[in-house]
């Protein structure tokens, strides 16, 4: 903790404020300067407290580990030759994690709402013989663990959760806005640190940011969703998430 720059800043500000405040007040007889020294103490305490709140694993290390996981999964997808877009499923009602399924056949059935996914890598998810999929854990799955999202939440809840994950926890973007448009959810991410690349993993599961967004949307709506598109916008990235309503029928 002592090595944290926030803690060092906090210590310097608090100590200098504590030393200077009585000097300004009693020796120089200046209330504004003494007040400024008090504000320095307050700022120092805030900075020191934020040092404690920093994640133990640095964002750089987290990004490196994320990259490793993505590359492993990409090798698997590439080896199996899966081209279809992943369907993000909400976490089951009886507990467990939200996961994504990558169908072997792109034109296969859609999973049903509330469908239980077996705890396996390869599983059957529909009645047809070709309804076989790969069930994977995505970056969004893990980040959801520290948040409580109640099913049925609207765009405000989605926006709040995404801001908390992408800005507050992972420091991956500057801001996130969410709009509902027909059967889709549009997520605009300003200044993202991870971008979409035309690689196998991103074509299947989307970029890590889109994957997190899709997981959150799926969890908040309690419906399966799919990343329809990801495109560069003026301020950052525009992600269109398609809500798979057919699964309700």
């Amino acid at each position, binding site marked *: 903790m002592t090595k944290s720059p*926030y803690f060092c*800043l906090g210590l310097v500000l608090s100590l200098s404020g504590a030393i200077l405040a009585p000097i300004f*007040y009693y020796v120089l007889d200046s*209330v*504004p300067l*003494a*007040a*400024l020294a*008090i*504000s320095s103490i*307050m*700022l120092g*305490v*805030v*900075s020191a*407290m*934020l040092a*404690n*709140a*920093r*994640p133990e694993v640095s*964002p750089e290390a987290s990004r490196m580990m994320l990259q490793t996981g993505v590359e492993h999964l990409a090798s698997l997808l590439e080896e199996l030759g899966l081209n279809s877009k992943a369907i993000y499923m909400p976490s089951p009602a009886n507990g467990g994690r939200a996961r994504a399924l990558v169908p072997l056949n792109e034109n296969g059935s859609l999973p049903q709402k509330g469908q239980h996914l077996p705890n396996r890598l390869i599983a059957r998810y529909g009645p047809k013989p070709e309804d076989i999929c790969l069930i994977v854990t995505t970056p969004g799955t893990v980040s959801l663990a*520290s948040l409580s999202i109640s099913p049925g939440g609207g765009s405000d809840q989605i926006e*709040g959760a995404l*801001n*908390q994950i992408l*800005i*507050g*926890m992972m*420091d991956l973007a*500057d801001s996130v806005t969410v709009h509902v448009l027909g059967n889709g959810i549009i997520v605009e991410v300003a200044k993202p640190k991870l971008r979409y690349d035309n690689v196998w993993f991103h074509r299947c599961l989307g970029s890590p940011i889109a994957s997190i967004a899709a997981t959150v949307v799926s969890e908040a709506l309690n419906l399966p969703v799919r990343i329809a598109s990801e495109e560069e916008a003026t301020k950052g990235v525009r992600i269109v998430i398609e809500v798979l309503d057919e699964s309700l029928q």
Partner: protein
Amino acid sequence: MRVYNSFIAVLALSFAAITVVMAAYKADKLDTYYSAYTIALLVLVSLYMYFSPKARRALGAVSLLAFAGFGMIVVFKVAEIL
């Protein structure tokens, strides 16, 4: 952590602006300055709602501490009046 840096920078700017404005209005009581700083801190903590739960807990503790100081000022003032 850009969001932490932004919070600290905005808080520092707010404190500086409050000091300049109050000094210009010839405020000569420390408790007036402190009350203004506390209000600025509480407002900013409310505005930066996207911190991680751990950071929000830490800032909540600082806010509580600052508010306790503000409460003491109010108690002293009320005692003075009475």
